């Protein structure tokens, strides 16, 4: 298993390096601003670091999408999957190793950013209760987006040979939801050209956040289950 994990890390080394840039880049920019003698922001440098953490957390979800989309298709595109398939390794072990690697990437992203949030939360202006509730909400939405990125990427990666399409598909999925949501909300909303409140489901669309969460929590496990099942049952690499 250690060799498989090492292989997954080495195979994704470029992704890891790019992910590190996305993860640490925002912090490096704040550090650069401090060292270069830029004017301190109104809320202090600590709030700049909190902003960097939010930005880093959000941008790092791209890394999660790439890890998911590259997981299986990445070895198909260079045909190294055929070499792996010629070795006596069970599909379950291969899946476990890929998931462990992805988990390590996700853990690193969340540990760094939530660590910064947690240690600097007191410096964020505003009512502490409201502030922490708001932060938790943002973090939850980012986590759900990351989950959709990974699971859709994983699922597409299991079916496709191209990691590019898998990653693109993963990134587009939340956008498709937003566009669909906006269209439906427009069509059944009060200002709809079809007439106001045509459906009882319209109330659901009043709450975008809730709809988005339901969408994420339904789609992500479904995609993960379909992708994993397909890969485990498939004979070909």
């Amino acid at each position: 298993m250690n060799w498989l994990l090492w292989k997954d890390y080495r195979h994704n080394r470029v992704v890891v390096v790019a992910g590190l840039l996305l993860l640490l880049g925002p912090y490096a920019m704040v550090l650069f601003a401090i060292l270069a003698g830029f004017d301190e922001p109104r809320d202090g440098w600590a709030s700049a670091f909190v902003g960097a953490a939010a930005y880093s957390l959000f941008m790092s979800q791209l890394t999660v999408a790439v890890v998911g989309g590259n997981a299986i298709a990445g070895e198909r595109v260079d045909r190294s999957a055929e070499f792996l398939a010629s070795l006596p390794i069970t599909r379950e072990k291969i899946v476990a190793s890929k998931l462990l690697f992805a988990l390590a990437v996700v853990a690193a992203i969340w540990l760094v950013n939530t660590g910064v949030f947690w240690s600097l939360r007191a410096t964020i202006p505003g009512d502490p209760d409201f502030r922490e509730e708001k932060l938790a909400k943002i973090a939850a939405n980012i986590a759900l987006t990351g989950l959709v990125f990974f699971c859709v990427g994983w699922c597409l990666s299991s079916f496709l040979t191209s990691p590019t399409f898998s990653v693109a598909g993963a990134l587009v999925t939340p956008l498709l939801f937003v566009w669909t949501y906006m269209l439906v909300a427009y069509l059944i909303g009060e200002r709809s050209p079809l007439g106001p409140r045509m459906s009882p489901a319209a109330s659901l669309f009043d709450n975008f956040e809730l709809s988005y969460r339901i969408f994420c929590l339904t789609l992500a496990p479904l995609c993960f289950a379909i992708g994993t099942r397909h890969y485990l049952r498939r004979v070909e690499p």
Partner: protein
Amino acid sequence: MTTSAPSGPAIECIGLTKRFGSTLAVSGLSLKIPRGCTFGLLGPNGAGKSTTIRMLMGMLSITAGRAWVLGTNVQSDPTQVKQRVGYVPETHHIYRWMRVREVIGFCKACFRRWNDQTCREMLELFGLDPEKKVKQLSKGTLTKLALLVAVSHEPEVLLLDEPLSGLDPIAREEFLDGVLRTICDRGQTVLISSHMLDDVRRLADTVGILYEGRLLLEGNLDALLGSTKRITATLRDGCRPKEPPDGTVWQRLQGREWTLTVRDFTAEKFQQVRALEGVEHASAADLGLEELFKDIIRGQRAGQ
């Protein structure tokens, strides 16, 4: 049939079929390769040799039929098959970023058995640099690395899919005499697919000829060559060839010369040709593997 006695066949297929969309790559292949046999699977490009080997390795789904390697069903337990089989593919897809020593370490971790001494000996024999990256290796060196991996876990069966393609003549000689000969003499079961007939002639004791996914013939190579002859008959002016004898796999008329390749050749069959009306003179000659192969394939293409 999930297990078999050690005396059972090393490889057994019954009605093995593979379809890619509308293309039938392998059609109802039934084959039994005994343990310790060196079997040459011959066929022109696209005959289904690689597809057959990939199905036997459990790397390709089977459309119909069944296959067992060392008594293990390749569909139900491909991992067990891979533990006991060494595989050298035609094209190598080893991780290009790995170093030779990393490839060895990675493969060693995957197999239950690994003979470090064999591995070291082959590393030395092939002159492989452990620190070199796979992407820096030539096709020949990559084949050597693939063979090293395939042999070091002491497999009971070796599946070699065109292992010599892409090698220059000197590397091929090195391989044939120094490596494959040794492997074949170890008593392991070897299935080697190739369209390089001379190489197969030097290694295999049994051959099978595959054409458009069908196994045209199978048998001991010497017996096959001994029982197949080419009859050349000279016809009298204006005469046309009559009905050829049974077992004719290919025939050709060029001017007055009528050439026939006859399987299960007997003196009676030869007499039958000589006695045909219009035959002035006839002679029979032995065939080499290459001529036999070519005639069988040509006969198939001509629908004979």
